[in-house]
Structures are given as structure tokens and as C-alpha cells.
């Protein structure tokens, strides 16, 4: 859906008739969530356990904020 179409339909507040279009606009597009193809763990300790079990190194993405959530 184009941005101009949204504006012309006054989809800047939510109502029953705009709800589905707003959801579609807000939800991430496939190209925006390619990073979710990586099977991220969210607990460094659990990653240690899996790494030892599977004989692999750990790749840690550490950020101020949740890298997979609000950051």
C-alpha cells in the first residue's frame, strides 16, 4: 500500500474500517526481517551450553537495549 493512499484515506487513527490496512502498514515487510532467518538464542548462558554440546563457537550480538527487540 502506498503512503499517499494511506494519507488520502486518513489512516492516521485507528477505527474498525481502517484497522486491517493499518496493521498491514505497521507490520514488518519480509525484506525488513531477514535477520530473523538467523536462529538467534536470547540467553548467553544457554548459548554456552549449546556451543559446548554442538562443538561450535558462539557469535554474540551485544547491545544496549534488546538487539532482537527495542533498541
Amino acid at each position, binding site marked *: 500500500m502506498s*503512503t*499517499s493512499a*494511506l*494519507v488520502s484515506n486518513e*489512516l*492516521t*487513527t*485507528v*477505527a*474498525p474500517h481502517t*484497522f486491517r490496512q*493499518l*496493521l498491514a*502498514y*505497521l*507490520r*514488518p515487510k519480509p*525484506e*525488513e526481517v*531477514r*535477520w*530473523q*532467518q*538467523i*536462529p*538467534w*538464542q*536470547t*540467553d*548467553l*548462558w*544457554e*548459548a*554456552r*551450553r*549449546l*556451543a*559446548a554440546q*554442538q*562443538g*561450535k*563457537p*558462539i*557469535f*554474540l*550480538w*551485544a*547491545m*544496549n*537495549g*534488546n*538487539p*532482537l*527487540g*527495542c*533498541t
Partner: protein
Amino acid sequence: MAGRAQAFSDPTVIALASERFIPVAENCSPLQTQQDAKGEFFRLVAEQGHYAGRTYPTGTRQGYYALTAGGTVLAAMNSRDPQRMIEMMQLALRRWTELAGEGLAASEPGEYRPARPNRYPTDGLVLQLVARDLPREVDTRKEDWRKYAWNLDYAWFTRQEARDLVPAPAVPGAQRAAPQEVIRRLARFHLRDFVRGEPSVWPEEAIRRGELTSEVVARTGDEVQLVLRGRITLQHEARWVRPEDGEERRSDCGFDATLYGEAVWNAALERFTAFELVAAGPRWGTNQYNNRADDLGPAPMGIAFGLAGSEPRDRTPPHTIYHRDYFGAASRLLS
């Protein structure tokens, strides 16, 4: 946010991280001070990395680390450039091969007793949130990442709080006001302007209006179809001190959100099997960490709430989970 869009959208990075490593993502802010084995382990790792010992301009240890299960760092950096990340991963794999030969790669971690309890509500309601700016009739934003920013978060509600969203008896036409605790959590912790970053929690007194009502619109056996309607208005003067110059900053902030949603409650399972809610309306102002200084508004913003999935990443905690008021009176008793 930018890391997700840049390095971790690269197919080579995705393949290397997925196939050659155990990939893990975690908030390092608490880990830098957390007094338990995981905090100590993170600090052991970080002090072998790119920011080891650094205190200026900040003491942050954020970045990317390749390490063994025992805590030996193989490579580390803080760059989102995909090519640099590929090179860093390949370097780590070469060092891993050398270390594996020395028998250092497969150390088993000991038992972990977290300093902070995991409050993930296994039998409750776990929602994923997506926030974006909505289209504007007059758009003066620069043509850069800020114009296209979006962000994720999670919201956690207990089993009882989820149950209390459903009218009783659950028959068509029945209505119920959401519990004050649910409205409070939505308002203070989740109706924040987090499109571009990490805003502060709204203080209690910022809630100028808080209404959310559910109504049963249909019932087929145990499946109860609900519509949610509400209005939550927040307004507050944010104040903070800039670390760069020690100067106090102030901004009048607000979000006047209309809420509408549709959900399905399974009365036999006592859980939501579908849940979609949108909060939309004008937001204005800025605060210390949400990158809105150039876009004070008012301008429309939307936040979509939906059921979280079952992948490990869907257990990512809410951004504000460690705030003492997140779970209200219950969390204060436990803290």
C-alpha cells in the same frame, strides 16, 4: 536497529551465523553490572574485546563477539559493515580451528542461578509490538534512516491479566473494562515513542486518560471473538541532562492514542489464540534516547500488537522489564 537492517540482512552473514556459530543476542546493559555468573562471564568476554577497559566517551561494551563456550574471545568488533563482519567471522573460525586442536573449545558451562528471575509468562499473554511513523500530509523529514525507522518490542501479561480481558459471562454483547494494571502497563511501558530508539518510561502522572474495553461479538463453542476499543492519552514534560555538556534539556511529550483490536479467546484453553491491536494517533516531543530532537511533531504514529511466536527470539523481554513498576504491585513485592 541499524545492525538488523545492515549486517544481519546480508546472505553471507546470515549463512555463517546460522551454520558455523551458535548465534545469541542479548542486552549488555544489565550484563555489564549484573552480579551473577552470566554477568561475570560477559565481563570476562568483553574485557578481551574491542572496548576493553574503555570508560570514555562511555563505558559501553556493545558490539559483536565470537567466543568459545569457555569464554575465550576469537574476534570482536563494533561495526555493522557486512564485509567487515564476514571477515571477523572468518578470522574467528580460523582461530576456533586452532583452539579446537588444543582442546579448549568445548568447555561445559556450570549451573547458572540468575540474579534476576525470568518473568516470562509461559501461561500468560506474550505480545510482539511494532512501532512506525504513520504517513503525513506534509512530510519534512530528511530522506535517511529516520524516515523509514521502525522498531520492535514485547509486552508480557500474566495469565490472570489475560483472563481479566474477557467479559464474564462470555456471551455476545457482554462488555468488560480492562483491569487498571493492564491499562497502566500498556500506557506507561508500551505506548512509548520507540520508533527510532529507546524512550523513557512514562511516569504515572503522564496518564491523562486510560480506557480499554473488550466486547464479545460472537461465540462458537469455546471460541470467543472479542473486539477491543480504547483511548489512552499521555502527556508529560521530559527532563534530562546531556552528558556532553551537563545541560538540562526539557521537552513536552505526548501520545494521544486511539486503540482498536480483534482477538479470539479459547475458553477451554484459557488463552488467546488470536490477538491483534493497533494504537494510533499523534505523538509529540522527544526525550534523551529516542532520537526525535529533529521531529518534535505532532505527527502520527502507530503501534501494532500481535501474538508473539514460539522461536527463542520471541522470549526477548520487554525493553522496560527491569523497571520496578512493570508488573505493578506484584513486581514491587518480588523485587
